């Protein structure tokens, strides 16, 4: 009897590829020998489309990148436009943007944790718990801008509208109740014997490999690297808040899950401080609809929930960007995937892949 490796196509339609991702896997029995990711099933040409729209209109395109946390996409883009055109938004607008971004981070990490547990084979219970809390975040978002997924809340020069009166009591309630939910989630996940057995020491990403692969976000921090754009290059008003950057020790799947859980608590801290500090005044600088930035280029990056999200814009003085390049964290975080999964079992491949937390809207753009 002679055995030979099997090539298995995981995806593009598969329950745990988080969208239309395809992995060509070379399997020796259950052991993964090699992996080749195949992208492009959700390619919509966002970068090219941006070249044909006025600067304000591109905001709607960014919503569709990482549709789990559209606010941070808005933020990265409007920061790039403001840098390009030399606009300084009013304080209240910046505070609202930061709060929206942190709420987005909460929503995204809840989704990431829930689906990670789903990939581990927990039949929907943690997922439903996470989605129950995400609903509350989405309710707050709906108060801000009327939408629940594709917000288009931010504009170059501020945000589209001030938060309504009833947003603040709702936010206060959310901030008092959310820590208990996070405690509950941690009690459910952190010490579960099966989760420990499945994630501890699995898919270790050493810090050196992570840095070489240009990985960012929770995946990088789980490997023990203290790198958070909010701290190392503070944008908007992040330098006025007190918060910590949770880092992992081992860089395994468990650390990646825990870093996300801890980061949610830090987001709550930021939200609390922002709600106290927020000044009055206008939320949006008066700007013409057809913004014409001077010729030049600008790169702005934010700490999106999945990592460093950057927009590189080139202006030729016209009403639309001459070139718009998106550095999407999901795509670049997939770089070390092969090193992480080789030698592990098929079941681990799914778990490791899930722990990276990618979003196909952002990978394929």
């Amino acid at each position, binding site marked *: 009897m002679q055995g030979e*490796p*099997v*090539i*298995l196509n995981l995806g593009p339609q*598969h*329950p*745990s590829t988080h969208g239309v991702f395809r992995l*060509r896997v*070379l399997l*020796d*029995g*259950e*052991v993964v*020998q*090699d992996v*080749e990711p195949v992208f492009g099933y959700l390619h919509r040409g966002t970068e090219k489309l941006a070249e044909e729209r006025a600067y304000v209109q591109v905001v709607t395109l960014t919503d569709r990148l990482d549709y789990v946390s559209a606010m941070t996409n808005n933020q990265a883009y409007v920061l790039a436009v403001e840098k390009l055109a030399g606009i300084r938004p009013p304080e209240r607008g910046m505070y609202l943007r930061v709060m929206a971004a942190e709420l987005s981070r909460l929503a995204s990490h809840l989704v990431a944790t829930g689906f990670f*547990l*789903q*990939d*581990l*084979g*927990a*039949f*929907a*219970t943690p*997922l*439903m*718990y996470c989605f*129950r809390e995400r609903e509350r975040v989405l309710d707050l978002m709906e108060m801000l801008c009327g939408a629940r997924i594709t917000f288009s809340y931010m504009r170059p020069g501020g945000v589209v509208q001030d938060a309504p009166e009833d947003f603040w009591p709702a936010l206060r309630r959310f901030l008092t109740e959310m820590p208990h939910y996070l405690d509950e989630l941690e009690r459910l996940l952190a010490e*579960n*014997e*099966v*989760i*420990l*057995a*499945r994630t*501890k*020491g*699995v898919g*270790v990403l050493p810090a050196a490999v992570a840095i070489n692969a240009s990985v960012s976000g929770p995946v990088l921090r789980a490997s023990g690297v203290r790198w958070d754009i909010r701290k190392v290059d503070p944008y908007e008003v992040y330098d006025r808040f007190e918060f910590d950057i949770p880092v992992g020790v081992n860089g*395994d799947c468990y650390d990646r899950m825990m870093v996300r859980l801890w980061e949610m608590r830090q987001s709550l801290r930021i939200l609390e401080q922002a709600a106290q500090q927020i000044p009055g005044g206008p939320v949006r600088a008066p700007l013409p609809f057809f913004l014409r930035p001077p010729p030049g280029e600008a790169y702005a990056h934010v700490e999106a929930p999945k990592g460093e999200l950057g927009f590189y814009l080139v202006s030729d003085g016209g009403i639309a960007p001459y070139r718009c390049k998106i550095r999407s964290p999901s795509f670049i975080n997939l770089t070390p995937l092969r090193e992480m999964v*080789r*030698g*592990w*079992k*098929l*079941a*681990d491949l*799914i778990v490791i892949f899930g722990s990276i937390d990618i979003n196909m809207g952002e990978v394929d753009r």
Partner: protein
Amino acid sequence: MGPWLERNGLYRALYSLLDGLLPAPLGWLAYALTGFIIMLLLVNGVLLGAALLVYMERRLLGRFQSRLGPNRVGPFGLLQPFADILKLLLKEDVVPRGADVLLFTAAPVAMAAPLFLLTAVIPFGQNAYLADLNIGVLYILAVTALSTLAIFLGGWATGNKYALFGAMRAVAQLISYEVPLVLSLVGIVLLAGSMSLVEVVEAQRLPFLLLQPLGFFVFFAATSAELNRTPFDLLEAESEIVAGYHVEYTGMRFGLFQLAEFGGVVVSSAVMATLFLRGWENPFVPQGWPQVLPSHLWFGLKTIFFIFLFIWVRATWPRLRIDQVMGFAWKVLLPLALLNLLLTGVEVWLWPRPTTAQLWGMVVVNWAVALACLVAFSALMERWGRRPTASVVPVRLPAEVR
């Protein structure tokens, strides 16, 4: 009517009724018809039980997951399983091109059949059963093992890689778990002094759940694995191999697999109620006293208790990996089952006819040993279980498929 039917009250009642209706030369027909009627009862009972379990499982999972569950079809959504079955019946029955048609068609039937065979020996009420085999326990173990073959047939005949993975996992997992499954029941046979399920129920002066805690733990875990329930649902791990061995099955063929799965839970819970919780006997009012609830109802309640255990586990735990599942069978369940056998053997040797006080002594000893074992094994798992097991072999995708 043979002497072995003398004690079967249900059979006798039905037989005398039919025998009175039919003319004398057709006595053999009454004999056969009685069997058929009980069979009909059992088969339909399992089918209805499986349908109700689907409903119960979905509603309970809804409660566990802070959502509603199905509540649209009929009062409280009670008709949901029937709507599901109707949908499955109306669906197109696809046979994939690469499939081995004969085996592909045979597998669902082979999967569902053992389920009904199992019910033959279970006493579902006082003096109510189809057959009282004197090798009942052995029969149950033998018949449950058939589903391994059906799963492997289905997975292999599909001609799909996911199904093949499911089938390979099935062979590895199900056969491994047969061993502790068999061993865990030997203690009961020793205590009862018989393999007949009817006599096992009658032998339980104390429920065997109290006398055989280790045996129950091993049996429950091994049964979960045999029925591929979480955390051992690797055969159809949705997030990994989509649906495993039944990935290409549609319509009622898929329905048969589902039926076998859910019916398996019902029947296994019934077996557990029989073996570990005194079957149909009223736990509060002893035999011979006036009974308020009929014995069938007690049997049903005990079965539902075990079904609830299965659903509870499913709502709580993530899935294990294949090497962890295999390790659990050979390194944890097998030693535990052997230890339980040794302990029970010594106890039976010491007290061949135990008094009630001696029985309670056995309960204390067995529970102490069971708890000590579980603590010891979890400590061992803590120490050795979490070592990373990746083995990197430098093989790359061949050039022609890149």
